[in-house]
């Protein structure tokens, strides 16, 4: 079953739009949602949750259309948007007390186990928490009501390496049973290299690719050679960097001509994001 099925999502703002966004996440897997700042990650995520009204498109979660079953489906979704910056004068206890009333399947046991794991003190006020602690608290809330789909916007940002590692462990523990699915956006691509099964890459409001992680990386190559060889391949490169040693550029694996005597390597997720961002620079 598909945990998340997004088809032809469109949303237009005066200076920005997401255009024909479509991707699917199979139940029981982790998908990383990547793209530079302003690429449309948060807009997409907010549209999924109906927090911004999309102009058109269809979204199904766990097999049900969200437009028709919104209240019901939201019981099954856990979401977190980085840290919490509302009701900062309230104690965690108070905020939890309010949040839990909305969820039928709220589990105090789960909640306290995460509080313990994250070393959070229930009697503290939101304002007294560090950024990382706020992120952990918002994740605790997202994880405590038996959600089957977690939609997390940059959950690892603001966390130290130890907490990030622990959070990724939690993600992998959660999907162990094959029941829970996770979609999370991030800039920290090493997190994805470790635990993501699928990658969806958005750029300027459009999905560039959405596929299994290795397939995604292997559909591109880093090509390097001398400056004189550049002319031969330039038209096919997504973008390139030139220095005194020659050039390095990103190319679609399918565009590679076996006759070229150039070095090729599989790019990292960072490489792909960087070279795609450079492409835009060319047109400006």
């Amino acid at each position, binding site marked *: 079953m598909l945990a998340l099925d997004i088809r032809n999502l469109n949303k237009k703002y005066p200076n920005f739009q997401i255009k024909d966004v479509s991707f699917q996440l199979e139940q029981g897997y982790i998908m990383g949602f990547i793209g530079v700042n302003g690429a449309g990650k948060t807009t997409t995520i907010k549209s999924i949750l109906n927090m911004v009204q999309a102009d058109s498109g269809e979204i199904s979660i766990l097999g049900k259309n969200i437009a028709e079953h919104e209240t019901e489906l939201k019981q099954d979704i856990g979401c977190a948007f980085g840290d919490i910056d509302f009701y900062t004068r309230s104690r965690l206890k108070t905020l939890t007390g309010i949040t839990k009333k909305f969820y039928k399947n709220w589990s105090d046991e789960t909640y306290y186990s995460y509080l313990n794991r994250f070393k959070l003190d229930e009697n503290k006020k939101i304002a007294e928490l560090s950024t990382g602690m706020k992120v952990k608290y918002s994740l605790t809330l997202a994880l405590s009501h038996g959600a089957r789909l977690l939609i997390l916007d940059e959950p690892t940002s603001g966390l130290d390496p130890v907490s990030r590692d622990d959070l990724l462990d939690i993600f992998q523990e959660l999907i162990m049973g094959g029941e829970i699915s996770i979609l999370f956006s991030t800039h920290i691509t*090493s997190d994805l290299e470790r635990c993501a099964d699928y990658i969806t890459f958005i750029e300027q409001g459009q999905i560039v690719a959405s596929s299994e992680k290795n397939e995604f990386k292997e559909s591109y190559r880093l090509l390097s050679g001398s400056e004189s060889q550049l002319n031969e391949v330039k038209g096919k490169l997504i973008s390139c960097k030139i220095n005194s040693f020659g050039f390095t550029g990103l190319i679609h694996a399918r565009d590679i001509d076996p006759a070229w005597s150039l070095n090729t390597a599989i790019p990292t997720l960072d490489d792909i994001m960087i070279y795609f961002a450079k492409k835009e620079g060319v047109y400006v």
Partner: protein
Amino acid sequence: MNVTISSTSDKPIYQQLHEQISAQILGGELESGYCLPPIRQAALELHVSVITVKKAWEELERNGLIHTVTGKGCFVAEFSPDEMLRIRNEMVLKQMEGDIQYYKSFGLTLDEVIALLGKIY
């Protein structure tokens, strides 16, 4: 079963997994009938994605090294010494093909390569 994964290596992780486990099976360390850990548990413990483990296990199955019993798990297959030799040679040859490109790029002849290999083997 003993596996070390390097995230900085050029080799995809599923391939590292596949190679190390194959070597242990073909080297006799993992005996036939040995039960591999379930995919999702292995992913959690090795800190890699579920699909990565899945791919490695599938590759092992394709090479005839393990077989899946639905509902029970993946087990190291039984094979004759001949078969073992054939699979081992296949894998070694595949690795050599890549290495040979490197030696050729220096313009070495086969005899020169063998002589050099002899020095360090």
